[in-house]
Structure formats: structure tokens, C-alpha cells
């Protein structure tokens, strides 16, 4: 049906490109495309011209040259004879290590602080408010540097652990030593047959998962519950323990010992790592605490009251009514905090932790003079990590979205 106010169709005039809203969008798009292309063209030609002028080809062959520098934390095989590519990988793994451990600790700290801030206990709630506001309102870089200073300045030197009545003693039955050169913790030694123990452990994790499914189905069918916690614990521990003892304890611990001027053996966890890890976790934890608090407050009180009216106990109310709804509010900002933590880990530079930024974007860049290539690779790395996390978040979001009918 055409009404009289509709413009005549069929006859297209050039002026419609500006005046008619139906065609104007095309005009705007074309202009935007041209402007974008022009800017991109300008940048690319400039870059090509500048690179030619400096005599620097744009290629990534330098990645297979000898790196020639040392990295103090090597989760994968690396020596100064390795290639730049290898150094890059070491940096990437180091970034991921601090990011993953940081996310775990930040979640623990944040959830505890967020729940305690809502607690009825006046003193604890105030204490948590001070923690949250204090950490949120001060730059994370300052926290990283300050933690590093605490660890290097306020901890004892290894030689104070010496002698009969030493000034300092190791913690946890002489297994952990906190010194100004790093913290020494026991290292796991994998002997013969340890692979079997690990496999059994992984299988028992699978067993727990299978048990959960079975128990849930049984509950749905009969309404009877099992002592789930104890059974799960038994599945987790018993098979691994039995095979461990049966094989004659293949996995042992190597304890750090004071020899010469320093601790030998065990695993040296560098101060740079601890400072970065603690600072990032506590800083992000403060943000997570706020997210958790907001999530719990977002669930209206009527939900709790309704659950009580149905006769649910407080624990079940939390598990079955409050948490599933609060998680929908909590998880998206939580994951963006994980993303922030991962990106903030690039501040490792301040304490000399050898992450992606310090290997590929630091020493490799300075040695080879390939700013463009190194920065592009580094940005691509961070971008890929971010996009993976965002994609995971989108999947989660669509799975918990309110089902509207």
C-alpha cells in the first residue's frame, strides 16, 4: 500500500543521496569508507617510506637469530644460545603464569573481602572497606613497586638464617625461607612411575565428575541425597594415595638448604614475581570485592524471603536461589577484571619480571632494533589473549541470559 506522503518510487535523482534518509546512509558509509581508506593509505605509505629511508626491511627473520641474553625465570627450556622466538615464548609463558595465578588469588581475596564487607560485623566490614578503598584508589604501579621494595628491603638476607641461634628461621618446618633474594620453597621431584600417579589423579578427577552426574540424576529421580562431600573427597584422595604408596613414593620433595652464601635446592620464587603477583592480586581483588558485593546486593531481599518461605535452609538458599542469580550479575565484570589483570601484568617491567613485555618488547626489541615487528607481535599476543577471554565470556553470557518468553 502506498500512501500519498510516500515519495514517488522509481525516479532516482542525485539529490536524494543527501536529502533522502533511505539513500543518505549509503552516502555516509561511502564517505566513511573513503576517509578510512585515505587514512590507512597515508599511514601505510608513510611507514613504508620511513622504513625504506632507515634501511630496515619489514620481516620477521630476526626471530630465529641467537638471543644472547639470559632470562632469570625459565618455565620452558631456554639459554642465551636460544633464539629470539624461544625468548618470546618464555616471556609469553611467564605472562600467563602470573596472570593465571593472579586471577586465582584475586578471586579468592575478592570474594572473601566482598562478602565480609557485607557482614553484620561492624569492625570487619570497616576493615574491608579500608582495604577496598585503599587499593582501588592508588595506582597499581605504586603497589607493585611498593611490594617489591618490601620484599627486597624488609626481608632478611640468606646469611641471617645461619648458625645455631640464627636471627631468622625457616617457616613450616624448615621448608620455606623468605629472603631478600627471593622465597625458597620445596620443589617436587618426579621419580620413576610418577607419571602413573599423575594419570590416576587425573582419572579420579574424571571419576568425581561422573559421580556428580550420577548423584544428580539419582537425586532428580528419587529425591534422595548422598553424603556428597565425603564421597567426592574419598574419590579425590584414596586412589592416588594407594598408587602413590604402592609404587614406593615416586614423587618427593626437595627442600631448600642454606649452603655457602645462599639457599641451594628447592625452588627459588623470585621477589619480582611475588611482588607482581601479590600487588596485582590485591589490587584486582579490591575491584572484585566490589563486584561481588554489588552482585549480592542486586538480588532483591524478596528472593531470600521466598526461599525461606519455601522452607529452604540458609545454606541451600544461598546455593540454589541467591548464587545462581548473583553469578549472572557477577561473572561478566569479573571476567573483564581478569582481562585487566592480564593486561596490567605488562607492568612487570617495573620490577624486572621477564614477561612478554620484557623479553619480546624489551631486550629483543632493543637488541634487534625491530620496533615495528616486535610491537606488532606483542600487541597481537595480548589481543589474542583478550579475544579468547571475551569469547569465553560471550558464551557464558548467552548461556545464563534471562530466558524471556
Amino acid at each position, binding site marked *: 500500500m502506498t500512501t500519498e506522503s510516500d515519495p514517488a518510487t522509481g525516479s532516482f535523482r542525485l539529490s536524494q543521496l543527501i536529502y533522502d534518509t533511505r539513500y543518505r546512509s549509503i552516502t*555516509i*558509509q561511502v564517505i566513511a569508507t573513503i576517509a578510512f581508506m585515505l587514512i590507512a593509505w597515508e599511514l601505510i605509505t608513510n611507514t613504508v617510506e620511513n622504513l625504506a629511508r632507515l634501511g630496515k626491511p619489514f620481516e620477521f627473520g630476526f626471530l630465529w637469530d641467537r638471543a644472547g641474553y639470559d632470562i632469570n625465570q625459565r618455565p620452558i627450556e631456554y639459554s642465551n644460545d636460544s633464539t629470539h622466538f624461544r625468548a618470546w615464548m618464555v616471556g609469553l609463558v611467564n605472562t600467563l603464569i602470573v596472570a593465571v595465578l593472579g586471577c586465582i588469588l584475586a578471586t579468592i581475596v575478592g570474594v572473601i573481602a566482598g562478602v565480609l564487607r557485607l557482614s*553484620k560485623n561492624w569492625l*570487619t566490614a570497616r576493615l574491608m572497606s579500608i582495604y577496598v578503598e585503599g587499593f582501588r*584508589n592508588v595506582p597499581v*604501579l605504586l603497589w607493585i613497586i611498593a611490594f617489591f*621494595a618490601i620484599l627486597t*628491603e624488609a626481608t632478611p638476607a640468606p646469611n641471617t638464617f645461619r648458625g645455631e641461634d640464627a636471627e631468622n628461621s625457616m617457616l613450616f618446618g624448615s621448608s620455606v625461607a623468605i629472603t631478600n633474594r627471593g622465597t625458597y620453597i620445596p620443589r617436587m621431584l618426579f621419580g620413576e612411575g610418577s607419571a602413573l600417579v599423575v594419570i590416576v589423579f587425573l582419572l579420579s578427577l574424571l571419576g568425581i565428575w561422573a559421580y556428580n552426574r550420577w548423584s544428580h540424576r539419582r537425586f532428580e529421580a528419587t529425591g534422595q541425597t548422598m553424603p556428597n562431600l565425603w564421597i567426592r573427597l574419598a574419590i579425590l584422595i584414596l586412589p592416588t594415595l594407594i598408587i602413590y604408596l604402592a609404587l614406593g613414593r615416586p614423587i618427593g620433595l626437595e627442600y631448600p638448604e642454606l649452603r655457602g652464601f645462599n639457599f641451594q635446592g628447592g625452588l627459588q620464587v623470585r621477589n619480582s614475581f611475588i611482588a607482581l603477583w601479590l600487588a596485582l592480586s590485591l589490587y584486582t581483588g579490591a575491584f572484585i570485592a566490589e563486584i561481588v558485593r554489588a552482585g549480592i546486593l542486586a538480588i532483591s531481599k524478596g528472593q531470600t524471603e521466598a526461599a525461606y518461605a519455601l522452607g529452604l535452609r540458609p545454606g541451600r538458599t544461598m546455593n540454589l536461589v541467591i548464587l545462581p542469580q548473583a553469578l549472572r550479575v557477577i561473572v561478566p565484570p569479573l571476567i573483564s577484571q581478569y582481562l585487566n589483570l592480564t593486561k596490567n601484568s*605488562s607492568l612487570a617491567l617495573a620490577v624486572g619480571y621477564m614477561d612478554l613485555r620484557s623479553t619480546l618488547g624489551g631486550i629483543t626489541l632493543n637488541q634487534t632494533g625491530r620496533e615495528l615487528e616486535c610491537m606488532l607481535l606483542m600487541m597481537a599476543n595480548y589481543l589474542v589473549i583478550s579475544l579468547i577471554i571475551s569469547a569465553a565470556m560471550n558464551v557464558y553470557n548467552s548461556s545464563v541470559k534471562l530466558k524471556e518468553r
Partner: protein
Amino acid sequence: MSDTHAESVAYVRDTMLPEKEPPGREVGAIKWMRENLFSGWFNAILTIVSLYVIGWILLHLAPWFTHMVWNAGSLSECREIRDELWGPDQTFSCFAVIRDRWQQLLYGFYPAELYWRANLAFVLFLVAIAPVLFSGLPRKMLYFSVLYPFVMFWLVWGGSIWLPLMVIAGFGLGALAFVLASRVNGLVAVIVAALVPVLWWLYLAGPIATDLQRIAPLAIQQVASKDLGGFMISLILGITGIAFSLPLGILLALGRQSDLFIVKGICVGFIEFIRGVPLITLLFVASLLLNYFLPPGTNFDIILRVMIMVTLFASAYMAEVIRGGLAALPTGQYEAADALGLDYWKAQRLIIMPQALKISIPGIVNTFIGLFKDTTLVMFIGIFDMLGLTNAIRATTDWNGIYWELFIFVGVVFFVFCYSMSRYSQYLERKLNTEHR
């Protein structure tokens, strides 16, 4: 019947009893403590743990604040004073370093005789920001707020007055072109209004400013960018970032919501790229790579580059925050605007944005706070902000080995600014809250 009942019972009280004091455990401090600190075994444990934590912190901090040295020229002098007053091996704090170097921490290497200019810029900043923050002030003050960035630029960097004036003239020309061209058509007007100032700044503003300076030399002493530093540089970067990232963020958010797929694609790509990489890599791009992207031979100020990067960075985050606000608006609002016959920009300006921005205030202020804290990252590209200066001060022989006093100073300054920003956002939220409960 009631009278017979009265006779059948032995005793009926005919006067009221006087009110009694409530039991001792139900009043005052004891009641408060029972309710708030020891209401159950778990709460009692929490209280005890909290007390232990507080006690531990106080015990370690107390000697620090009771033994303060404020008058000394170096750390060793501090220690001598400590030995004299409280004896050796006592924990003490040497705040003399702040007294000695606070000017450097705040102003960087800005010439001391020109501090008044920095101070004036800061005072004028407070004047400029006041009408934005508090709606009770006269609206005419907003004109000054708009002019303030140029005033700040001129006061801080100095030099000829004609350059900032020519930049302002560019905006004036743009507005003029918009008015003239909007008689033809709205879209043409937007394009012309965007093109004219750019061409003016690129080709005409510089030479004309030079000529005018030759004719009428109006200049104050120039300060080089490398002399800027300290808290001042954080403030400058923060203010420019905040001022420009909000409008840019709004545009990006609108672009991301738009139906035009190319515009949308560009905006999404930009936002996701910026949000995906750490700010520090962008700062390194600004300091190392920008020369590759610009025509050979151009070289512009490092602080300007950092400003641009910080603004772009914050605007991507801002766009996401505002997109959240836009998404939270019910579709009915858009439809109502259409039903009233408002065009796109009018609908945005009068109906959508006021509500969307109100919803996103907490997020916007959080982005501001984040941006302000992130200005400390410029220390990595050779700009001496407060954190960079703490390293520089520690490197001098006088103050070698001093950490905490400097960190506390830096932390407190940032805390004051960031915390007041977050308090302000809470105040604004309460003020704009039109829901009736």
C-alpha cells in the same frame, strides 16, 4: 456481667506501673557490641581476627609515626637526629625528604620562578570544573570551562599567545562554516564543519600565528615539555584525557550501535583493539613507533603524543560504558522519540543521552579514575611523573635508600584525588536519581 467478673478475682491493678530502665545489656555500648561485634560465634571470631589485624598493623606503624623527622637535609642527617632523640636501632620515618623535595614531586623540573603559573592554572582549573560539577553555580561560567584547556596550555607551556588563539579560531571557523552550510543541508554542514578547521589547523594556523607574533609580540616565557613532570603532568594528562575521552567515547558508542555497517565495523574494530592491548604498549607505540606512521621529518611533542594515546585509550573504555547505558534504556524511549518526529541527533541529545549517561555515571567515573591512575605509566617512556621522580630522588646521594616516605606521599596524593572523584559520583547518582521509593 463485667462487674461480677471483677468481684470474682482477688486483685485488679488500677494504676500503671512506672517505666523501668531497660536491662543493662540492652542499652548503650554493650548492646551495640552485642549486636555488631559478638552476635554469634562466627562474628566473635571475625571480631577477634580483625582486632588482631588492626593491632598488628598499628604495632608496626606506631613507631613510624611517633618517630618522625621533618627537618634534615639527607637520610644520614635524619639518622643522626634519630640517634640523638630516640637512640639507634629505632624504627623511624624521615619525612624530611618530602619537605625537601615536595616541590619537585609536584612540579617536576618546572622552573621555580614560574611555579605561580602552574598554581594559577590549577586554581583556574578548579574554577572551570566547578560549574560542571555543581549545577547550582551560574551557567555562564561554562563559557570559561570551554576556554580553559587553551588557558591551561598557554599558562603551562608559555610561549606566544597567538598559537592557542589560532587553534580557538579554528573552532570558530568550523562553527561559522556549519551555520553557513546548514542552510544547504545538515549532512553537508557536518562534513564542512569537520573539514574547515582541520585544513585551517594543518595549513594556515601555524604561519598566521608566527606572522601575528612578529607584528604583535605577546608571549610569556616558554617551558619545554621535558621540564614538565611530577604530579602536574599526571593532572594535565588526566584533565585532557577526561575532557576529550567523554565526547569521543559517546561518538564511538553511537557508532557501535549504528545501523551503518561500515561505521559500525570501524568503531567495533577500534574499541576492541584498544581494549585488547595494555596501555603500556600504546604508550610505547607513541614513543617508539609514531615516527614511522607520520610523514618523514615530522616530529611532535612527546607529551602531546601521550595525551592523544591516553585519550584514545580512555575513549574506548568510555564507549563500552556508554554502550551499556544505551543498552539499558527501554526500546520505548527510542520509539517515543521517533513518534515525536525528532531526527537522530535531536533524539540523542534530548531523549537518549541524558538518560543513558545518567545510568552510566558510575562507569564513567570509574573510567576517569582508572585513566588518572594510569597516568603513572608514563614513567616507562621517560616522562618523570611522581613515581618516576621517586626513583630519581632515591638516586641522589642525599636520599639514597629512602622508600616508604615517598611512596606514602605519592599514594596519599592519588588517594585524595581518586577517592574524592568516587565520592562525587555517588553524590551525583543520588542527585540525579528520579526514582521514587
